[in-house]
């Protein structure tokens, strides 16, 4: 592996200053499950790793039924699904944290790192999009916020500017009669990367018949995870029905622009967007009604 320096940063301002001074060859180290592999395999040129796991703000895991979730960027997957109230409030996010790698990966990897790695196939990003997550970003000029669907700009590229780092994700409290769901297609049961992933969140009326709002997001069918805006909007005000779900799935397929690669062909992926969108929507609706 290439030689690099390591700093165990103690404060946000220390980490930001180091990022700002060292430019593109400085990288934030949280769980390291992508970064260490990428450096070892010479896919990233890094001369400084800034370990942020001692910084309090990136370790926050705070859920309040009124204000929602603050999820520090370095919180590992296993800590998230250990909190029952978070599992109940954001089941779609939990679906993703439980399928990222195996047990040992989930002991180190976190949602924030999955987002910052900016893989088009990242499992955590569609749930964050459908749950309306906001990125809290610290930089040399202070803090700013960004909707999560604007965070990834290209494979491995993010909206973070020089000297900026992700601090946390804020997810609003779930509305009543709402739930979320995430699933992916992989050719085996575990330990794989999504051929296609789909997430959905749905809010129903009190009778649990009519869709008040919905959000759909897709992974691995474009250079970045996608918010399926038209597909989501098509559901608003409609009764829960096969026709409504089919229409949304078709609208989601319309924005998919997948490539063919070792994991699947573009044609298969487009087909899968339809299948998985239907299953994600039905899954979220089922969770509301259960």
């Amino acid at each position, binding site marked *: 592996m290439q030689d690099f*320096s*390591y700093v165990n940063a103690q404060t946000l301002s220390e980490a930001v200053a180091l990022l700002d001074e060292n430019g593109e060859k400085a990288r934030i180290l949280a769980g390291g*499950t992508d970064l260490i592999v990428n450096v070892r395999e010479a896919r990233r040129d890094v001369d400084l*790793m800034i370990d942020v796991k001692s910084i309090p703000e990136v370790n926050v895991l705070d859920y309040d039924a009124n204000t929602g979730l603050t999820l520090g960027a370095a919180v590992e997957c296993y800590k998230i699904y250990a909190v029952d109230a978070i599992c109940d409030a954001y089941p779609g996010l939990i679906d993703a944290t439980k399928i990222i790698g*195996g047990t*040992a990966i989930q002991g180190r990897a976190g949602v924030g790192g999955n987002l910052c790695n900016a893989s088009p196939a990242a499992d955590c990003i569609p749930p964050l999009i459908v749950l309306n997550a906001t990125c809290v970003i610290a930089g040399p000029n202070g803090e700013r916020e960004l909707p999560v669907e604007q965070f990834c700009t290209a494979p491995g590229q993010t909206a973070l500017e020089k000297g900026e780092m992700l601090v946390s994700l804020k997810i609003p409290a779930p509305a009543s009669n709402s739930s979320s769901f995430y699933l992916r297609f992989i050719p085996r049961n575990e330990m794989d990367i999504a051929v296609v992933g789909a997430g959905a969140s749905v809010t129903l009326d009190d009778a649990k018949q009519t869709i008040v709002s919905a959000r759909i997001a897709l992974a691995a069918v474009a250079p970045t995870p996608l918010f399926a805006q038209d597909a989501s909007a098509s559901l608003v005000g409609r009764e829960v029905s096969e026709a409504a779900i089919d229409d949304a799935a078709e609208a989601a397929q319309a924005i998919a622009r997948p490539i063919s690669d070792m994991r699947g062909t573009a044609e298969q992926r487009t087909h899968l967007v339809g299948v998985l969108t239907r299953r994600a929507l039905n899954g979220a609706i089922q969770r509301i009604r259960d």
Partner: protein
Amino acid sequence: MARKSHVQTTINGETVEFLCESRQSLLEVLRDELYLTGAKEGCNNGNCGACSVILDGRLVNSCLVLGVETEGKSVETIEGLAEPDKLHPIQDAFLENAALQCGICTPGFIMSAKALLDSNPNPTEHEIRYWLAGNLCRCTGYDKIVKAVMDAAKETSA
């Protein structure tokens, strides 16, 4: 030559000090600096689980942890499992069930199984299979490993 850092950590209950470069993984430190060669290098990218160790109570791939990250932490490796004259019940169960052939994946499987039983003393077969999904074995076909872990669970929770 790359600068080395001084690191103090606890390994299998003993305080250990070592010097390492930032780029050395915990796996490299264990094997090359401390001569604890139980953890194995398989894929070196987090897929195979042969290097599994327990870091501050949590199962990790030691190939994906930097040695310098373990300052002040506690590491459990396969070397710390058996007592001087007695194998750990998971080790016994692996022998009894013939849950290994070539053996290179075995330290990782046993540490992974230990982390499971530490947190969930009575796992179902389903839970065992999912928990161990990050450990690969090319010899046994997994069935004997799963049975060994089920037996060990019976033994340790009895």
